[in-house]
C-alpha cells in the first residue's frame, strides 16, 4: 500500500480537523447533547447548561500537534531513511502530547465536576430544609476535593441531599484528537520500516488487513451519510445554532459521537465487553458454519434454518430427557449439532444427487424452517379432516415408494421405463389425493396440542430441565450471579491471565525462531515467558484487581464456540478428511482425479457446516441467552445471515472469524446503546454497516490488485532499504 500518500492525506485531514473538529467534549448529556472544546479553549455548547472549563496546556498541545503534523508532512515529502526518522519523531511527539493533554484535561474536568457538586451542596447549606444535616454537608464540602466524587455523593446522600444530574458527565476525546492519534500511530508504525525484519512484518500485516480494514472504513463512511441524514445535531433547551461554524462543528461531533457510542461501551466497560462477547458467541458459530462451506466450495446461506432445527432438537432433549447433567447436557449439545447437521445435509444431498444448487435450496429451507418454528410454537394448530387424510396418504406413499425402491424388480422396471412409471405413480397419487380430499359427513377437525408449548398465547416452549442448562460464564470462575444479583466486585488475578496469554502467544511465535524447533526448548521458552510475565506484573498489584462483574447472559457456550473454532482449524488443516474437503473446494475435478469423492465431500461439508450453525442453540436455548431457558419464536435467525459477513471478514479462517465475530459483537452491542443514546438513530445502522462490509469485501475494498496485495507492490514503489527487492524475489513473482 502506498503509505506515503495515505499518511499525506490523513495529515492534511488532521490539520483541517485541528481547526474545525472538536478536540474533546467536556459534557455529554442524555439525548446526545454535547459541550465541546476546540483547541485552544474554544467552546461550543449544545447543552445550554455547561459552564466554561479552563483547561490548562491547550496552547502547548496545539503548537506541538501542529508542529509534529508538519514534521510528518515534511517526512512524506522526503525520501529514504530521513522520512522514517521524521515520521518516528512526529508520531512519538503526537502521541506523547495527547497523552499529556488528556491527562490535564481529565484533571480539569474532574475539578470542574467537583466544583459543580460543591456549588449544589453549598446552595443547600445556605437554604437548608428540615431533613438536611447541615454540619454533615459542611464536612462533605470540606473534603470534596480530596475524596473521590462517588464517596462525596454518598456522604451527601447520608446527610440528606441527593445530588443528581451533575454536569461534566461523560467527558471524552473528540474527533480531531482521534485523527491526530491515528496519524501519530501510523507514522510511528511506518517508521518501523527502519528495521528490515520489522518492515517485512508490516508488509504481512498490511497484506492481511488491507481489504478488511478498507472495507470496514468504507462501510463506516457510507453509514456516516445515513447517520448525518437521520440525526440532526442534538440541542439542549434554548440553544440555537447560529452560523456555519457551530453548524459544522455540531455535525462533525454528531458523527463522531455516534461512532464513539458504537465502540466505547463495548471496549471501555466490563459490562459492555461481556455484552459484546454475548453477541459474538452465536456469530462465531454461524461464521464458522458459513466459512466451513466456503472452504469446500459451497455457499451455505442456510444457517438461519439450521439454527432453528438445532434449537428445536436441543429444546426437545432439554425438556424431556431426565438424568444428571453429566449425561443430559452433552446429549443436548449433540442434539443441537445433529439438528443443524441434518438440515444442512439435506441440501448437500440434493446437490450431490441431483445437482440442485445449494444456494437456492438452503434459502428455501430457511423459509421452511421459519414456518416450522412458527408451527411448533403456535397454540393448537388445527387440521381439517380431508387435509389430515391427504397428509397421511402422502406419508404412506413416501413410505411405500421408499420400500419399493429397495426391491430389485421394481428398480428394473423403473430403469426400463422411468417416464411411464412416474406418470402412473403421479396419476395414482393425484386420484388418491382428490378422493381423500373430498369432504365427508361426520368429519372431525384434528386439533394438535403440542405438549412442549407453554399454555397461553406466548410463542415459547416449556423451560428446559435444570440438568441441561449451560452455566453462565462468571459461574465457571466462581461468581454466582444468581445467588448474589447485581454487580459483584471480585478480586481477579490479572497477572495469572496475562501470564497465560503471554505463554499462549509464545507458543505460536517461538517456533518461528530456529532455536526453538526442539520441543524441550519450546516448552522451556513458553514456561519462561509465562513465569517472567507473572513475575513482572505481580509487583504492580495485578494479582488482585477489583473487577465488577455485572449480571450477564454470557454463558459457557462462548467457550464451546472457541473450542469449535479450534476443532475447525485442526480438522481442515491437520487431517486427511479436511485436506480432501479443501481440495474439492479449490479444484473439484482435480480432487476427484486424486481419489476424492465430490458427492461424499459435499454432503460431509454441508453436514458439518449445518452442525456448527445448529450449535447456536447452545447459546440461545441451553445457555438461556433469550429471556429464559426456553425456545422462543424470537430466536434471532438473522445471526445466520450475519455469519456470512463474519466469515468473509475473517477470511474464512477460524482465528479471523473469532476476531471478526467479536468486532460484530462490539457493533451490535454498540447498536443497542446507540438506540438509547441517540433520539433519531436505530440499531439498523449496524445491520446496514454489516451488509456494506460484505459488499465491499466482495469487491476487495475497490482496491486495485497492486494495493490489495502489498507483497506484490509494483517495482516503482519506494524500497525503504536499498536492495530489499532482491531478498523478496520469491514473494514478488
Amino acid at each position: 500500500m502506498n503509505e506515503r500518500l495515505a499518511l499525506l492525506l490523513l495529515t492534511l485531514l488532521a490539520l483541517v480537523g485541528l481547526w474545525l473538529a472538536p478536540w474533546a467534549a467536556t459534557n455529554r448529556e442524555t439525548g446526545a447533547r454535547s459541550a465541546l472544546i476546540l483547541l485552544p479553549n474554544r467552546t461550543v455548547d449544545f447543552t445550554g447548561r455547561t459552564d466554561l472549563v479552563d483547561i490548562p496546556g491547550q496552547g502547548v498541545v496545539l503548537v506541538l500537534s501542529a508542529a509534529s503534523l508538519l514534521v510528518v508532512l515534511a517526512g512524506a515529502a522526503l525520501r529514504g531513511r530521513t522520512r522514517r526518522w521524521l515520521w518516528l519523531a512526529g508520531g512519538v511527539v503526537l502521541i506523547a502530547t495527547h497523552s499529556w493533554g488528556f491527562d490535564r484535561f481529565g484533571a480539569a474536568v474532574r475539578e470542574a465536576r467537583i466544583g459543580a457538586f460543591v456549588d449544589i451542596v453549598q446552595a443547600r447549606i445556605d437554604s437548608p430544609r428540615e431533613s438536611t444535616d447541615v454540619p454533615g454537608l459542611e464536612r462533605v464540602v470540606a473534603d470534596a476535593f480530596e475524596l473521590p466524587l462517588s464517596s462525596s455523593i454518598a456522604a451527601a446522600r447520608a446527610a440528606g441531599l441527593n445530588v443528581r444530574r451533575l454536569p461534566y458527565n461523560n467527558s471524552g476525546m473528540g474527533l480531531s484528537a482521534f485523527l491526530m492519534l491515528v496519524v501519530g500511530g501510523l507514522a510511528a508504525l511506518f517508521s518501523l520500516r527502519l528495521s528490515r525484519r520489522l518492515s517485512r512484518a508490516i508488509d504481512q500485516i498490511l497484506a492481511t488487513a488491507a481489504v478488511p480494514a478498507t472495507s470496514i472504513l468504507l462501510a463506516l463512511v457510507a453509514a456516516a451519510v445515513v447517520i448525518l441524514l437521520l440525526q440532526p445535531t442534538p440541542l439542549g433547551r434554548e440553544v440555537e445554532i447560529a452560523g456555519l461554524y457551530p453548524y459544522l462543528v455540531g455535525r462533525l461531533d454528531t458523527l463522531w459521537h455516534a461512532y464513539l457510542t458504537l465502540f466505547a461501551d463495548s471496549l471501555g466497560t466490563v459490562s459492555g465487553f461481556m455484552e459484546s462477547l454475548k453477541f459474538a458467541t452465536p456469530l462465531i458459530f454461524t461464521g464458522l458454519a458459513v466459512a466451513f462451506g466456503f472452504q469446500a466450495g459451497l455457499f451455505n446461506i442456510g444457517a438461519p434454518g439450521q439454527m432453528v432445527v438445532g434449537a428445536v432438537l436441543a429444546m426437545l432433549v432439554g425438556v424431556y430427557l431426565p438424568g444428571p447433567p453429566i449425561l443430559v447436557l452433552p446429549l443436548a449439545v449433540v442434539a443441537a449439532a445433529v439438528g443443524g447437521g441434518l438440515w444442512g445435509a439435506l441440501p448437500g444431498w440434493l446437490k450431490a444427487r441431483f445437482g440442485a444448487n445449494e444456494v437456492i435450496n438452503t434459502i428455501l429451507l430457511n423459509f421452511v424452517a421459519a414456518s416450522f418454528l412458527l408451527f411448533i410454537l403456535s397454540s393448537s394448530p388445527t387440521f381439517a379432516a380431508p387435509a389430515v387424510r391427504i397428509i397421511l396418504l402422502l406419508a404412506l406413499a413416501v413410505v411405500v415408494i421408499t420400500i419399493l425402491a429397495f426391491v430389485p424388480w421394481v428398480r428394473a422396471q423403473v430403469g426400463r421405463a422411468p417416464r411411464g412409471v412416474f406418470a402412473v405413480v403421479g396419476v395414482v397419487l393425484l386420484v388418491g389425493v382428490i378422493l381423500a380430499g373430498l369432504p365427508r359427513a361426520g368429519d372431525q377437525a384434528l386439533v394438535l396440542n403440542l405438549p412442549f408449548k407453554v399454555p397461553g398465547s406466548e410463542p415459547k416452549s416449556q423451560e428446559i430441565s435444570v440438568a441441561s442448562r449451560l452455566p453462565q460464564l462468571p459461574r465457571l470462575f466462581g461468581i454466582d450471579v444468581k445467588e448474589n444479583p447485581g454487580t459483584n466486585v471480585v478480586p481477579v488475578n490479572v497477572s495469572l491471565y496475562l501470564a497465560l496469554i503471554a505463554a499462549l502467544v509464545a507458543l505460536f511465535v517461538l517456533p518461528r525462531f530456529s532455536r526453538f524447533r526442539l520441543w524441550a526448548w519450546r516448552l522451556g521458552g513458553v514456561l519462561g515467558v509465562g513465569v517472567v510475565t507473572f513475575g513482572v506484573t505481580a509487583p504492580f498489584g495485578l494479582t488482585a484487581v477489583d473487577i465488577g462483574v455485572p449480571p450477564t447472559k454470557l454463558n459457557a457456550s462462548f467457550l464451546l464456540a472457541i473450542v469449535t473454532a479450534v476443532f475447525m482449524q485442526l480438522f481442515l488443516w491437520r487431517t486427511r478428511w479436511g485436506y480432501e474437503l479443501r481440495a474439492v473446494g479449490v479444484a473439484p475435478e482435480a480432487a476427484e482425479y486424486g481419489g476424492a469423492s465430490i458427492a461424499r465431500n459435499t454432503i460431509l461439508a454441508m453436514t458439518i457446516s449445518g452442525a456448527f450453525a445448529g450449535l447456536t442453540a447452545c447459546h440461545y436455548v441451553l445457555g438461556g441467552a433469550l429471556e429464559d431457558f426456553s425456545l422462543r419464536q424470537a430466536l434471532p435467525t438473522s445471526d445466520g445471515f450475519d455469519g456470512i459477513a463474519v466469515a468473509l471478514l475473517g477470511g474464512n479462517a477460524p482465528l479471523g472469524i473469532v476476531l471478526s465475530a467479536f468486532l460484530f459483537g462490539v457493533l451490535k452491542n454498540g447498536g443497542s446503546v446507540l438506540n438509547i443514546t441517540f433520539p433519531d438513530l436505530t440499531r439498523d445502522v449496524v445491520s446496514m454497516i454489516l451488509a456494506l462490509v460484505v459488499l465491499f469485501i466482495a469487491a476487495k475494498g475497490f482496491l486495485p490488485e497492486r494495493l490489495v496485495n502489498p507483497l506484490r507492490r509494483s517495482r516503482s514503489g519506494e524500497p525503504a532499504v536499498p536492495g530489499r527487492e532482491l531478498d523478496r524475489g520469491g514473494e514478488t513473482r
Partner: protein
Amino acid sequence: MSLDTVLLITLIGSTLRATTPLLLAALGGLFSERSGVVNIALEGIMLFGALAAAVTAQLIEAPLLRGNPNASVPLAPVVGVFAAMGVGGFIGWIHAVVSIRYKADQIITATAINLMAIGVPRLILTGLYDNSSTSEPLRNRLPQWGFGDFHLSPLVYLAFLLVPIVWYVVFRTPFGLRLRSVGEHPEAADSVGIDVRRMRYYGVILSGVLAGLAGAFLSIGNFNQFIREMSGGRGFIALAALIFGKWNPWGVLGATLLFGAFEAAATLLGGRQLLPPTVVQAIPFVLTMLVLAGFVGRAIPPKAIGKPFEK
C-alpha cells in the same frame, strides 16, 4: 352466477396475481443470467422497488391530501411505479459494478444486497414515518382493469405482455443474440467485437428494473403500503422458476404460473382453515425444492454463468 364460477374466478384471479411478481422478477433474472451474471439479489431488489414505489407515491400525494383528504391524485402511483423501476435499476447497477467491474463473487455481492434490503428500508421508514415496519397507507392506488368480478392491476397485464416481448428481444434481435453470446462464450463474443462488460451491465440493470417493477406490484399494485420483508422469498422462488423454465420466457411463464397456482391454492387452503397457516406458508417452498431437485438435471444453464470475464 353459481358459487363454483365465483370460486373459479377467484382462484384464477389470485393465481394471476400471485404469478405476476414471480413472472416479472424471473423475466428480469432471465436477462441477467442469459448475460452470464447470477442474480440472487432479485429478492432484495424487489424489496427496494416496493419501498421506492410506496414511499414515492405517498410523498407525492401527501401534500395534496392535506388540503382535501379525498383528493384524487392518479399520477402518484404511476410515478411510484417508475421510481421503483429506477431504484431497481440502480441497485442492479450496483450489483453490476461490483460483480462485473470488480469481479467479485456474484453470489456474495447479491447476498450483501439482500442483507441491505432488510436493514435499509427500516432506516428509511424510521426517518420518514417514525415506524420501522410499514409505510403510510396510500390513498391513491393503481387503477384496477377488468370486467365484472374480474379486476386486475395493469401491472398484471404488463407482466404477461412482457413474455412475448422478452422472447422476441432475446431470441430475435441482434441485442438478444449478443446478450446470449456473452453468457455462453464471452471470449468468442469478445473476439467478434462485442463489448462483453457492457452487455452484462445491460443484462443486470434490466433485471433490476424488472425486479423493481415486481416490487412495485407487491406494494402499490396489489396492496397500498410497504411492509418490511413483504417479498417473502418470492425473489428466490422466481430464480427457481427461471431454472425450471430453462431460461426461456415461455418456460418461465409456465413455471411461474405453476408456482403462482401453488401460492393461490395454499392461500385458499389457509383461508378455508383446512390447514394451519404456518403449514400453508411452507408449501410453496417445499414444492419449489421438489421441482428443482426433479428438473435441475435437465436444465442447462448459460455456460459462462457466474464467472467474471477476464479480458
